[in-house]
């Protein structure tokens, strides 16, 4: 705006007094603002908001077959959901998934960041090594882990056998299959979150640490009193992202287990995909999506209204 000296001066940014200039400059700045935002608004609306709203509307209709129109059925899809054992299984699996992968991957990310933030030899290589899982596409990573988990000659079982443990069918047993998938998520996400922590750690003023050391504070005290509170905003950001990701897991389920055995790894988004594109029940899939959407919206709102206020920002 400042560069355009040829054009008429932009209107002052302070709002005009009541009663004056209601049409002219005031309107132009709004129009301009909207024009600038237009491309983003159109894209977001076309690919996010309109589909989301249509999904909510469709969830109140039965699934149309062929050219027949879909009748309005109100809340019937949601009532069916309450009686659907696989839906409840997916919800339970998803909550477990979040409950374990979020804290573990955040903790590992912070520990890795603290480690590679210190002055150690080979730091760059170490940082790169931690970050590499993030760069791999999820399906490629899942295929690597598929090999790790293969019974008998898979990597994990070969190592286990060397120490005399019995071979475990990691993906073929309902007890081990969900933790096996969680391990892949943690492995993949921790390196990514480490980058955020690393940036946060480098923002902490060194004089705080110097002062602490002059006071003879222990390493634990330094971490607990200085580092932890100061990286708190990052921790929150990372935890929210991890939580949202936990509800968006689908790639490794498709690549590694197909939701089995006996729905042990059916997560909500995978179930939505299955209902929509294997069962062709778009109405029910829309209802499931609406539930997923509401859960994610609730997480985001919780972040904005409650947790944000309790965090100390500098």
């Amino acid at each position, binding site marked *: 705006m400042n560069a355009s000296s040829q054009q008429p001066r932009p209107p002052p940014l302070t709002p005009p007094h009541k009663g004056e200039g209601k049409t002219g400059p005031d309107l132009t700045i709004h129009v301009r603002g909207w024009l600038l935002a237009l491309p983003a608004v159109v894209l977001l609306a076309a690919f996010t908001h309109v589909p989301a709203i249509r999904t909510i509307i469709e969830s109140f209709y039965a699934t149309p*077959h062929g050219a027949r129109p879909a009748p309005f059925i109100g809340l019937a899809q949601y009532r069916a959901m309450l009686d659907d054992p696989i839906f409840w299984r997916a919800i339970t699996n998803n909550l477990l998934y979040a409950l374990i992968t979020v804290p573990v991957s955040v903790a590992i990310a912070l520990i890795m960041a603290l480690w590679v933030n210190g002055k150690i030899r080979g730091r760059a290589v170490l940082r790169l090594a931690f970050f590499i899982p993030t760069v791999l596409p999820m399906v490629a990573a899942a295929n690597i882990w598929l090999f790790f988990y*293969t*019974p008998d000659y898979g990597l994990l079982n070969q190592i286990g056998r060397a120490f005399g443990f019995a071979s475990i*069918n990691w993906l*073929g047993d309902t007890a081990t299959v969900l933790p096996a998938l969680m391990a892949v998520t943690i492995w993949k996400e921790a390196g990514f979150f480490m980058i955020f922590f690393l940036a946060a750690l480098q923002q902490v003023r060194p004089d705080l640490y110097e002062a602490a050391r002059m006071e003879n504070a222990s390493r634990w005290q330094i971490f607990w009193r200085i580092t932890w509170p100061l990286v708190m905003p990052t921790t929150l950001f990372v935890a929210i992202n991890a939580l949202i990701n936990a509800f968006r897991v689908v790639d490794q389920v498709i690549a590694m287990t197909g939701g089995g*055995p006996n729905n042990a790894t059916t997560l909500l988004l995978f179930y939505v995909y299955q209902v929509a594109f*294997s069962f062709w029940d778009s109405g029910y899939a829309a209802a499931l999506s609406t539930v997923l959407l509401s859960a994610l919206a609730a997480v985001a709102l919780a972040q904005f209204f409650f947790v944000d206020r309790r965090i100390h920002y500098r």
Partner: protein
Amino acid sequence: MNITRIIAAAALASAALAGGTASATEITFYYPIAVGGPIPKIIDGYVEEFAKAHPDITVKPVYTGSYQDSIVKAMTAAKAGTPPDVAVLLSTDMFSLVDDDLIEPIDTLATSDADKTWLKSFYPAFMANSQAGGHTWGIPFQRSTIVQYWNKDAFKAAGLDPDKAPASWDEMVAFGKKLTRRDASGQVSQWGVEIPSSGFPYWLFQALTTQNGAILANQDGTKVAYNDAKVVEAAQFFADLSTKYEVMPKGIIDWGTTPKDFFEGKTAVMWTTTGNLTNVRNNAKFAFGVAPMPAKLRGGSPTGGGNLYIFKNKDKAKEAAALEFAKFLTTPEKAADWGIATGYVATRADAWETPAMKKYAADFPPAAIARDQLKEAVAELSTHDNQRVTKSLNDALQAILTGGKPAQPALDQAQAEATRILAAYQH
């Protein structure tokens, strides 16, 4: 510059030539790839050959990924108003396509005497999955059955006749006990048999139910018999192989890694599709054999694989062109050629009389095993709302195999679930 001019001239010339014939009908052909090999090259070759014989039809082949990707693409395209004209999709997708009113019954298009003979030329076992409600909806194209592959060297090492595969359930157990090798600490280094149970366990399980004399669904896809006493018995045997007889690994056996287990000597016998024939031939470092399924009350296997479907179109010329292309792809010569190139079972008896197929079967006798087994083959489990109805069986089987539930209650629950879903289709 010169090159551009030549291209321009060529384009003009070809446009002039094309103008000479009547305006060409363009049809789209969706096909998936489910086996190894240079499939797109073969398909492109067929399309070119077809173009020479039918200058008035242009076929646009579209590779659409796996079977699941292909049905998703075909259904979505059809709902958006631009369906493919002809597509290769799973034979079990038939009811979904019929229920959504997307495909044309082929018997209403193929009405001449020659066409009627053509419809009757395929193996009845393959047609069982292509007909419902008095109509023929699909043409068998890339079809398969389950066979057992056995490691002859392992049989010899275990003191068994290397040329004799297990021919009955009892032999499966007896041979399996000899073939299962344990080291001093009780670790198994070689299993007697592997029957995969990941993803779509119902298909391999259907071999067991067929052998035990049960039929899982009726021809019109409106009823299933999941908790029939014979089905429960078959499920119990499936689980017993690992828990009671201890000749098969416990838990879920992955479909994708089963051939690798066989190549690595981890299992002496495996059950898998005939479509793996070329794969096994190229990768097994030992003498192997291919045998029909073992028998209980009878032998037998479900069929599997894909059919050609013709999609509904207001433009009847397109439907006629699609039929023409489907006929071209299923001549005895093409069926033989496709079978040799891919490992699928050539779909009609006269294909096995062609010189190319005769030579292939003479050089590689295992290729004929699947064909001979067709006499005892049954239709693959397929119903209305197919994937949902089969999922209830898949879940029950995986619960039984992982020890989550005994056979009877698990299958009772699957039956109740399937009956509830199919209630909408009882007329």
